[in-house]
């Protein structure tokens, strides 16, 4: 078991403590047009820890630039939402965080991304991807049982295949963290593909958590799901952010409003604005951000 360097610690300052719930017509900026139920109650000042740092990242596919010189921090203890219209580069940015962009032929990358201070380009890709795991838009559980799906990472990443009893505890823990254990506990050998869409996606989250990552990347995880499953997964994300840095790409502004702590708005590959969710939805500085959030374009 290797010792990891303790990550740098930062305490929240007064400016960053989330404000009380937004209400329409109480003097806030009129650009927000959401008439939603109040946001989740302001949590007490939580611990926020820097995990990854993106520095001047640019990604191109062939000659087409997809991401242009983006810099932002990714922190454990908060949910970072990447928003923006289609084609703005948010998915490419997400995929560069675990070096999945390398799998596409012709991709090139400049800039630096660090994980706990170490440049990820220096790490072995497979090792990196166990610390920074990803959940995709389409639920993609493997054609195995629920147990085998979650145990997959544990079995395949070890240098010797562990016995079933050894991983059972870890599997149950991962399922519990993903909020799925109650529903499948009575039959862990159930074929994973027979679960409902929402359950499959939570299974994918459990699978990603089984690798015990430091950062969890979610690429529009709820876009293929019904509202009930969406809500379950959003609650799950809020619970997870304490232990894992969460980065979520979403084209659903309401979802970002509900769960994000920090928001990065991208447009045509550039990071237009980055800030706390409270400020971005309440009083964004850039005109384009204002237009996007108010729905002038999408």
């Amino acid at each position: 078991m290797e010792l990891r360097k303790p990550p740098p610690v930062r305490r929240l300052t007064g400016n960053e403590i989330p404000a009380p719930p937004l209400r329409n017509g109480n003097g806030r900026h009129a650009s927000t047009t959401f008439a939603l139920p109040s946001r989740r109650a302001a949590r007490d000042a939580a611990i926020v820890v820097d995990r990854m740092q993106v520095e001047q990242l640019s990604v191109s596919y062939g000659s087409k630039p997809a991401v242009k010189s983006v810099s932002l921090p990714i922190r454990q203890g908060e949910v970072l939402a990447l928003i923006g219209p289609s084609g703005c580069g948010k998915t490419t940015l997400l995929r560069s965080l675990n070096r999945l962009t390398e799998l596409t032929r012709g991709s090139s990358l400049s800039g630096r991304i660090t994980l706990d201070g170490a440049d990820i380009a220096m790490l072995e890709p497979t090792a990196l991807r166990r610390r920074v795991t990803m959940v995709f838009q389409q639920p993609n559980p493997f054609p195995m049982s629920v147990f085998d799906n979650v145990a997959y990472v544990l079995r395949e990443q070890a240098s010797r295949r562990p016995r079933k009893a050894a991983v059972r505890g870890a599997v149950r823990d991962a399922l519990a963290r993903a909020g799925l254990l109650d529903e499948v506990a009575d039959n862990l050998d159930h074929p994973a593909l027979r679960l409902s869409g929402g359950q499959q996606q939570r299974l994918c989250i459990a699978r990603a958590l089984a690798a015990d990552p430091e950062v969890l990347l979610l690429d529009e995880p709820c876009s293929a799901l019904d509202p009930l499953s969406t809500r379950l997964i959003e609650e799950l994300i809020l619970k997870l952010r304490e232990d894992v840095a969460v980065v979520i790409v979403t084209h659903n502004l309401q979802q970002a409003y509900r769960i994000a702590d920090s928001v990065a708005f991208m447009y045509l590959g550039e990071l237009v604005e980055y800030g706390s969710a409270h400020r971005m939805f309440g009083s964004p500085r850039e005109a384009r951000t204002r237009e996007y959030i108010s729905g002038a374009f999408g």
Partner: protein
Amino acid sequence: MSVATPAPAGPSRKRSESGASWRWSDRLGLGLAWVLGLLFCAVAAAIVIYFLIEGIRYLRPNLLVTNPTPGVSESETGGFLDPLLGTLILGAMSMAIAVPVGVGIAVWLSEFGRPTGLARLAESAVEMLAGEPSVVLALFGAVLFTAGHLGFLSQTSHGVVLGQSFFAAAAMLSLVALPMVVASTREGLQAIPSHVREASYAVGKTKIATTRRVLLPAARPSVITGSMLGLGRVIGDTAIVLLLLGGTLTFQAANSTPLFGLLRGTGDTLTGYIYYTAPTGDGNQPSKAYAAAFVLMLMVLAINLGVDLVVKRSQRAVRWS
């Protein structure tokens, strides 16, 4: 606020050693895949080049236009015109049976298919037929064509029906080609989305008219692919030819009726000729065998290229929305 140490919730944070992401068995597996892949390339290249060289060495144009003649040395034994024609005739005859029957069965399975019992039986039957060795089909043909009813289609000699003729061989060869035509056509028909059929039914067309005018033309690349694959198998088959065609190196017509007599008679194909002229065969003329093998390979290559062409062209053609 307490000092932050990331609280390890959930499973204990155990990490495997870095570098263990590739176990030695993985490296071994990848290495083996590379070795076998390259070995396969080498063997394939060796086979192709070998036959190319030997074929070019021994193939002379006059071999294609002279008939086999009895003789002792290789220079006297003539060419393989009749066997070549035999291959072409058999190919044409068996496909003439296999394609319509195969398409018909595929249409029935895909568009009609009631009662379900018969449909499943038919599917299993075609699949089982695909797996049968051609020697067994050859023996079946021998029984069929010596029985009374079909005896007229083959040669009789002194009142005994011999059961060997082009008809007999073509009939059994069509069974060899049939499963491929059925499978390929069925796939092509099933790939057509249902809204196309519904659009046609909605304007009052019958099922059969829809099939004839809309579905089959759309599935044409699959039909062609299946037929060509079947044809490939037909021209390469030797067992049925040896047992049902008589193995006479030249055509021996059964009677003097122009075409019918010829087809009732015996003959040979390239594959039978190669079997005969191989060192293990009665003829033992390896040079002729090489030449005939070369011609046969060219035919197979042409068919394969044809299939590739059809597939590529169809991929660029109709796109169902």
